[in-house]
């Protein structure tokens, strides 16, 4: 079976600082992988390379059967990404942002499920820029819902969440894993209970100098 993610020989340097050195990672269907490590160790850079927000110096990324570089739109159709920090676009309500996601991912009916996931009540029709941090996170989680993706990439998804929202997110990820999607997330030690509940395979990045080793499943 084709892996949900196949990243090979990813290398990235910012000036003289080599953050990623020849990193490989394969995530199978229904598999969840957690990258754990100190701040500045390159987790977000690696996730950026996987999602196309950071261009690696070398290496290849495949989302399912699609190459991120050669088939940028098709690869992204199979990808859902939750960044660590996100400014809501100004001038739009939560409902309008979710409708946008539903349309872009070709699942207009998915807006309803996304609204239920966000559970923002009347605030969903307010301008998203006025949301609290927690509400904004919930809105962006809901943006993951429309359509079926092969890979979900989440950058520190549990940060700043209350217990109920954590449970809701875990439940969503569990359902996606059961449906055959792969999940890659960056996490910290305090997220261990959620990672245990999801059965996540951990990869610990000990060096603050960056990820410089292979992340193959056999590790």
């Amino acid at each position, binding site marked *: 079976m084709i892996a949900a993610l196949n990243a090979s020989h990813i290398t990235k340097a910012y000036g003289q600082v080599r953050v990623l050195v020849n990193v490989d990672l394969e995530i199978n269907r229904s598999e969840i992988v957690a990258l754990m490590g100190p701040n500045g160790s390159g987790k977000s850079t690696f996730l950026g390379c996987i999602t196309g927000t950071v261009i690696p110096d070398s290496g290849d990324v495949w989302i399912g059967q699609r190459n991120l570089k050669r088939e940028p*739109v098709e690869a992204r159709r199979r990808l859902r990404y939750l960044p660590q920090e996100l400014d809501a676009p100004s001038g739009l309500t939560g409902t309008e942002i979710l409708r946008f996601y539903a*349309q872009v991912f070709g699942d207009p009916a998915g807006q309803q499920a996304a609204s239920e996931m966000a559970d923002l009540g009347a605030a969903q029709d307010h*301008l998203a820029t006025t949301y609290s941090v927690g509400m904004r996170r919930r809105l962006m989680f809901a943006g993951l819902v429309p359509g079926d993706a092969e890979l979900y990439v989440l950058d520190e998804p549990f940060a700043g969440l209350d217990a109920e929202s954590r449970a809701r997110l875990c439940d969503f990820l569990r359902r996606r894993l059961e449906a055959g999607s792969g999940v890659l997330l960056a996490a910290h030690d305090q997220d261990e209970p959620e990672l245990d509940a999801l059965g996540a395979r951990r990869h610990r990045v000990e060096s603050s100098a960056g990820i410089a080793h292979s992340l193959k499943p056999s590790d």
Partner: protein
Amino acid sequence: MTRVVAYTGPVSAPRPDLAVWRSPGTAMFAPALVAAGWLLALGATTSDDLASRRALLFVGGPLLLMAGIHGRLEPYLHAPERARLLPLPLAARAHWLSSRGYHLPQLLGTVSLGVAALAVGTLWPSAQPQWQGIYELTALWLWLAVFALPCELLIAGSAAALGRRFPIGSLPYRTQEKVTGGWTSREAAVHLYAPALAVGVAVLLALPGQLSITRAFEGHTLRAGHIAASVTPFVVALAMPTAGCRLYRRGIWEAVAWLSEMIKTLAGPPLPVACPPWVSHIPSPLAQILILRMLRLSPFTRLRFVAVVGSGLYLALRTAGPTLPSAVTFTVVVMCWLLPLRPVAGQRGRPQTWLATLPLPAAQRQGRHVWVQVATWGPPVFFGFVIFARWIATR
């Protein structure tokens, strides 16, 4: 009785370079509109009617200053960025200097717009240029502008000092109570009056000098009394910036917080205007989002669009060729269309992770949509080219 002790704020090195957070030109939108109206009104007078033009100057000058004063003074207290910078260990003077760094170019721009309106509006209807009249009107306008700067600085400082909470029963407390008029909170009441007060004081201080200038241009000699009446307000104005800065340093730490609170309270629930039905019929989801943001984040978007297309059509199709005033008017209309769209375009340039990972073509992942760009730039470029071509052809 509640006693509130004024917080003098932390002391640290000033950082005047904080001015960079604002994009210049935002506060020029309203002045550009008023200057265009002023130009047209001046142009409508007969060529030798200097008295009417003076009257238009005494009305139009304060109006032009008033048009952009809120935008010019916004960084001192109102700007969200000010509230965000407030927790940082920056001296009050740094906040003052960074705000002034934005305020001065904006005022200079407004004054330049006024000079341009006066010059074009006076030259336009005349077969032979009335240079004497232009010199006089420009001198009168610049004399007012010289007083506008210190008055605006003083008022910005005063708004900070008076935008605080005072002990119950004290004179400032009772005054705040009286002047709110039910419009806002006590602490924010000063902001209802400050802009008009700044322009009013500037007019009052400039008036003796302006009358002396008129007298001199009419060929009368200026006596010592005239000169004293003109110079005395000038001496008073010299002390205003320093006083303004001192008042600002006293008030900023509380006034900004009260103002932020008042803005949130007044704004009510953050419900935007409803999405027009035609927007949801646009096939591209990104175009829908971009157009919706244009409609919501810039004022009178549809009216401005109609104005640019309408004025472009009129100038392109009318029998007589384009004239200088009509070209100026079209340029102002184009500015009125494009400048308010800058906040929407500005956000597009930021690293947009929310678009970057979506299954959209590369340009759209950067927030650009070809039809939205055509709608934005098409009318100004097309009609500008047609008007320019007609102007070349008629020469």
